[in-house]
């Protein structure tokens, strides 16, 4: 779960890190009021769940209430990198003396949490680190280890931070790390952390991602207003309980594993077929889940055929077959469906699938399923 900027900043406040003065608005008419509350020059920032919004025109300054309202009207009408603007963060314009980078993520390689600091921040951080690797301070910690302020102070020694600034930066870093652990985060990034000319240290941006699998124990986040991050179909997929990504082709694809799904996409592409989506069921297949998945795939419109690639390991092929049959009998009457199903209880499943009028592959060969699919499509084209 990825937070919008304003939600991320609320979270930073919660853990004791300062952010610029700001007001969130949902309509252009609220902009001048927000300006008055802040009481100085502002920037209006489109709240969209994607990076690069600055270059896409999603961040604009305003020096007076009237301009603020005009800018807000303009932004609320926009679509930024595919996302409609539904909220704006109206924030004090910052008088920046210096920018810093701080970020924490999980190094899946080692299974450690990795804290990173750079004495420069901003959009070019990756370039800076590539060119001047010595400017990156990196501390890795096993789950059993805490990151303590003194380690950060030691690590920042000689990097040009002194007196209170050193103490404050170390404290911010320790608070971030502590929160990262406590709140089951997968990313916590402040870029840039700004030293302002008036002496304040504020997080000018906030990137916060929470482990979806840990939301059950993270009430703060599970109670947050759900962000309109995904395509509505991806959201529906979440409710059904499957992973779903929209692609731009015309073949519906359902697979019972991520690896198998990726492999099937590769093979389809090799054969010039274009999947309309990537839908992976995971290990919890029921008849209903398959039925719902087929409905979801078809909702996309313009679907020429569906390929269902299944193994019966932890998944029940019988459940899957029943789901296909139900869909066939109600809403998926006409679309060609190719099903490859092998594994535990395959014979029973084949029987059900045969009665459902789908094209059946009874061996493990995904390549054969794709050959069959191609054949069906070309027959269809020929009429």
């Amino acid at each position, binding site marked *: 779960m990825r937070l919008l900027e304003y939600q991320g900043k609320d979270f930073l406040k919660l853990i004791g890190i300062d952010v610029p003065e700001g007001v969130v608005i949902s309509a252009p008419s609220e902009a001048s009021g927000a300006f008055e509350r802040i009481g100085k020059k502002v920037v209006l920032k489109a709240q969209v769940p994607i990076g690069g919004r600055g270059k896409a025109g999603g961040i604009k300054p305003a020096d007076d209430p009237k301009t603020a309202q005009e800018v807000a009207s303009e932004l609320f009408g926009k679509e930024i990198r595919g996302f409609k603007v539904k909220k704006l963060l109206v924030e004090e314009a910052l008088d920046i003396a210096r920018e810093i980078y701080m970020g924490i993520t*999980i190094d899946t390689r080692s299974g450690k949490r990795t804290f990173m600091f750079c004495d420069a921040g901003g959009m070019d951080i990756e370039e800076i680190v590539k060119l001047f690797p010595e400017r*990156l301070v990196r501390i890795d910690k096993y789950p059993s280890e805490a990151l303590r302020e003194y380690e950060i102070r030691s690590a920042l020694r000689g990097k040009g931070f002194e007196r209170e600034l050193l103490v404050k930066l170390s404290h911010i870093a320790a608070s971030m790390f502590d929160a990262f652990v406590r709140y089951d985060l997968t990313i916590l990034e402040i870029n840039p952390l700004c030293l302002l000319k008036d002496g304040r240290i504020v997080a000018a941006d906030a990137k916060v991602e929470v482990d979806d699998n840990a939301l059950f124990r993270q009430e703060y986040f599970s109670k947050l207003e759900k962000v309109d991050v995904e395509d509505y179909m991806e959201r529906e997929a979440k409710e059904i309980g499957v992973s779903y990504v929209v692609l731009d082709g015309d073949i519906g694809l359902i697979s019972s594993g991520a690896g198998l799904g990726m492999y099937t996409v590769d093979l389809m592409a090799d054969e010039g077929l274009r999947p309309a989506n990537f839908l992976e069921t995971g290990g919890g297949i029921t008849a209903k889940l398959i039925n719902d998945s087929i409905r979801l795939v078809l909702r996309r419109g313009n679907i020429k055929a569906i390929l269902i690639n299944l193994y019966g390991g932890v998944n029940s092929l019988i459940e899957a077959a029943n789901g296909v049959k139900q869909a066939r009998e109600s809403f998926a009457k006409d679309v060609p469906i190719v099903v490859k199903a092998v594994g535990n209880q395959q014979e029973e499943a084949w029987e059900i699938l045969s009665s459902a009028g789908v094209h059946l592959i009874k061996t493990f060969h995904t390549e054969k399923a794709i050959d069959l699919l191609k054949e069906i499509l070309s027959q269809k084209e020929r009429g």
Partner: protein
Amino acid sequence: MAILLTYETRAIVQGITGRVGSIQTRWMLEYGTKILAGVTPGRKGETVYGVPVFDDVKETVERFGVNATVIFAPPFAAKDAVFEAIDAGIKLVVVIPEHVPIADAMEMREVARKRGVVMLGPTTPGVISPGVGKLGIMPGNMFKPGKVGVISRSGTLSYEVSGYLNDEGFGESSVVGIGADPVTGVDIADILEMFDRDNDTEAVVIVGEIGGSREEDASAVIRRMRKPVIAFIAGRLAPPGKRMGHAGAIIQGETGSADSKLRVLEDAGAKIAFKLSEIPKILRKVL
């Protein structure tokens, strides 16, 4: 004779009374696996397909000299189940559940490695040594005894690759799912070393996928291995995954893409298969 799961393996099932745990226990038994006991707290005295159930792992170790476990716990309880197995002295822990919090997976990995425990998963199909037994959820009919070791990040693809190996008469010594989660107990490199030491394995197939760097990290082992290694990466043309922020990008560097993996693996001496169907052909050449 095989790695990890051998004729000496004496296993339990944690979460044996659950819906999935019980049916999978049946299938493991039918495959000939030595499942000596099961554990579900509060259910001691029951049996599942003839297997006696206990309240805690320690008692099963004390009674039956158990040395492996297959865990079917809900995701939030997986960590405790793993720690219970490790504390009871079990050295092979197969963690089936998906959706385990990554922080828990990290703790499990740290403890398992410190204690010398081989932990497969989370989100693993487990390990099968065809003809010997299976600890996990893979369909037994997809595998045949043979001389090729298989290491896979994906369960389903390990079934598919075994299909090709069987078709062409190779079969598998052991098929090991390290787990599909970002953080797992063992790395591809760990399993490669086991296969290299195993007398019954003549070649190893790595079924990788895009993301992470487990494949790249295996290159040092591949370089010093005596046995041929064939590598396949799924997701060559898959849509790019989520970016893990600048921090993720900095850590990841150049690793993670299919290109990176294939280049590094080939450079280390692995033969590259672009389709699974190519694997048997390559095997014929190298064996």
